[in-house]
């Protein structure tokens, strides 16, 4: 049984239908700790000891956020800057997070077609998320292939519900201890939004 920590960052959560439906599906699941970063730290004054303690208490970390300007919202970056300390998360003595897994869950307004070499955005989601992948790796964590809900501008209610459902299944799978390949097998075949894990 893996314990899961969902770190959710959305500066205007109350206006995001997709994210609220998704969050509602997972936040109260067994084995899940849900942290709404913008609710906890409106002044960006992150309580580092608390966040580090939370990390230590969990096996899997979910970075859940919308993709803004090909990156995360600023508070999520602040969280990375503050919490993943030198000689704690990385550096010569920094092994606190070794062996934990990271899953990035993102929502994008533009559809999948836009994120490819022929599309307007030129690069795929995975390529844009390289910094996060490398962050996880530097902290000796295993970065799983991201789960992306894309084209949210055009999703209808049913589709959103479907994605949210899928999100819940992923979390449940991860909680039950399935490894990353099994999760892929049990959840993603329907839509297969995942690109390959990059390593």
């Amino acid at each position, binding site marked *: 049984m893996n314990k899961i920590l969902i770190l959710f960052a959305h500066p205007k959560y109350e206006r995001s239908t997709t994210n609220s439906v998704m969050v509602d599906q997972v936040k109260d699941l067994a084995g899940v700790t849900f942290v709404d970063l913008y609710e906890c730290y409106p002044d960006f*004054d992150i309580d*580092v000891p608390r966040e580090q303690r939370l990390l230590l208490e969990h096996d899997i970390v979910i970075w859940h956020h919308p993709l803004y300007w090909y990156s995360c919202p600023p508070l999520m970056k602040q969280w990375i800057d503050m919490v993943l*300390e*030198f000689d704690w998360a*990385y*550096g*010569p003595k920094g092994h606190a997070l070794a062996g934990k897994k990271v899953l990035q869950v993102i929502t994008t307004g533009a559809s999948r077609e836009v994120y490819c070499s022929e599309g307007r955005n030129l690069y795929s989601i995975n390529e844009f998320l390289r910094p996060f992948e490398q962050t996880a790796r530097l902290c000796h964590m295993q970065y799983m292939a991201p789960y992306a809900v894309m084209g949210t501008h055009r999703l209808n209610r049913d589709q959103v519900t479907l994605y949210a459902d899928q999100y819940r299944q992923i979390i449940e799978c991860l909680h039950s201890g399935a490894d990353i390949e099994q999760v892929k097998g049990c959840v993603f075949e329907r839509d297969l939004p995942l690109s390959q894990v990059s390593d």
Partner: protein
Amino acid sequence: MTGSILFEAIVFLAGAVVAVPIAKRFGLSAVLGYLIAGILIGPYVLGFVGEEGDDILHFAEFGVVMMLFLIGLEIEPKNFWRMRKAIIGMGGAQVALTMAAAYGGFMLLGYEWRVALTIAMAIALSSTAITLQSIKENGLWNTTYGASSFAILLFQDIIVIFMIGALPLLSTGPVAVDDGHGGGEGLLSGFPTWVQTIAIPVSVAIVVVAGRYLIVPMLRRVATARVRELLTASALLIVLSISFLMEQVGLSPALGAFLGGVVLANSEFKHELESTLEPFKDLLLGLFFMAVGASINFIVIQDNPLMISGLLLGTVFLKAVVLYVVGLLFNMKTDQRILLTVGLAQIGEFAFVLLSFAFGLHIIDKEVMDMMLVVTALTMTVTPILSIVTDRLILPRVGTLQEEKHAVDHIAKTHKVILAGFGHFGSSVGRFLRASGIEATILDNDSNRVDLLRKMGFEVYYGDATRLALLESAGIADAKLFISALDEPDAVSELVELLQHKYPQVKLMVRAKDRYHAYDLINMGVEHIYRESLDTSVRMAADALHELGHRKYTAYRQAQKFIKSDDEAIRRLAKEKRNSEEYIFLAREEISLQEKILEEDIKRGLIEDDHHWDSEQMKILAKESLPKDSRQSQSSS
């Protein structure tokens, strides 16, 4: 029983120490406590004080002088100038109407016109001592009632000079020796009238000029000597000199002291003077009230109970009616008008002066003087009682009437937030909420503000927020959130206790006046406490860091940390047992509190500067070990 000054002092002090706390206990004002103490120690009850009560009365009137000096200190010259219309308009109307009515009344009673006029003059004046003291006690200084009372009383202080000046003209007999008080003819009595007339503006000018060019430099000199009691001596010297000067030229010492206060209001010694004179003033005023109580001649009352009670009721009624009319003329709100009506309905201490002066001039005989003195003292005793009655019985009804009338058109709306207090603090809270689309229900006890807010479309309930009935009509039962922005710590604690007891489901957010108050609130179990002096001062300190060359964001983060650690400290310290027995004196307790806070700071040391975004540490390590792992790439960025 008398004779020894020490014994007298003991009697008066004991009277005060025994009677005032008892009066307070029963919710009466201190003024009333003093008056009752005076009656008790006076010649007709316990008999500790005899005829010398009158001398003490004259001596204690000096408390009134000090009070006006202190009031003057609070009023900057330009504000005083702004009040001139109210002073002349309201004061003039009150004095003229009261005098006319009283004159008519006493003519009808068959008195000679001179006697009637003298009595009318005495009746027109109200008691500065009683009124202003109770206004201060009840925190009504900034209301319309407070300002109007002050304007009227100030006008009376000015007009009394002319009254005293006019009395000799009414005299038919030989002019008696001046009683050495108030309107006496001092140094200049031998000079022709024109010299005396010129002396008045000249002496006023002397006070103004001396205030600026003599007193302030003198105080500076005294301050550099660093001998604390010298400042007390200078403060007393100033007030005494001004009073003396004023008496010499025939002006009221109280008025002169007031002027002196206004002149010094802008000086840097304002607060020093205030704090040194305050205890003297309070003691002397207490003495004054006791002397008034002791001077009530119960034999006169016994001889003529009907006449006296008739006069008492008639006078108070007449004064009240006039004040009510004045309030109407000047568009005062109903509640403020009622306060004014009752507040100023007594005959004031100047009557003692006027009447004895008139007696000296043979305008009135002993019988009339004794009778009027008794009536004066009785009115001074009765009006504080009347004030309590209005406060408890009449005002709540007036308040409720207004709020119910208004509540009707909002009845459909269920308000989730109640905001108590809309002063400087509360208004910011309310404005921000409104700017964010939340209409809080407001409770406030300043009727003018209430009126303004209602005009601006706020839902406002007028009255004392600690009253359960008001809270209930404001809808506390459905409220989600109750925000207390009240200023007075005791009232806040009372309110919190009430709400926790009666409506525990309502979430409380409370403004704390200071650390001390915050401790109380923490111990009462209030979770959301907002110390009014914390955020702003830390922000200021952070800006100071910035001015000293620190980067703004770093200073800002230091400030955030400081607030956090201070918050933790206060919650920890609040749990510590307080030796309230040991710390009878607030000042001492505050010092020990400061000591504890500073100790906490020392324990914590400097706020640790963290190493975020700081590659120094990494660089050091990089030099020590070979750059083979990936942190190299981080630190080079």
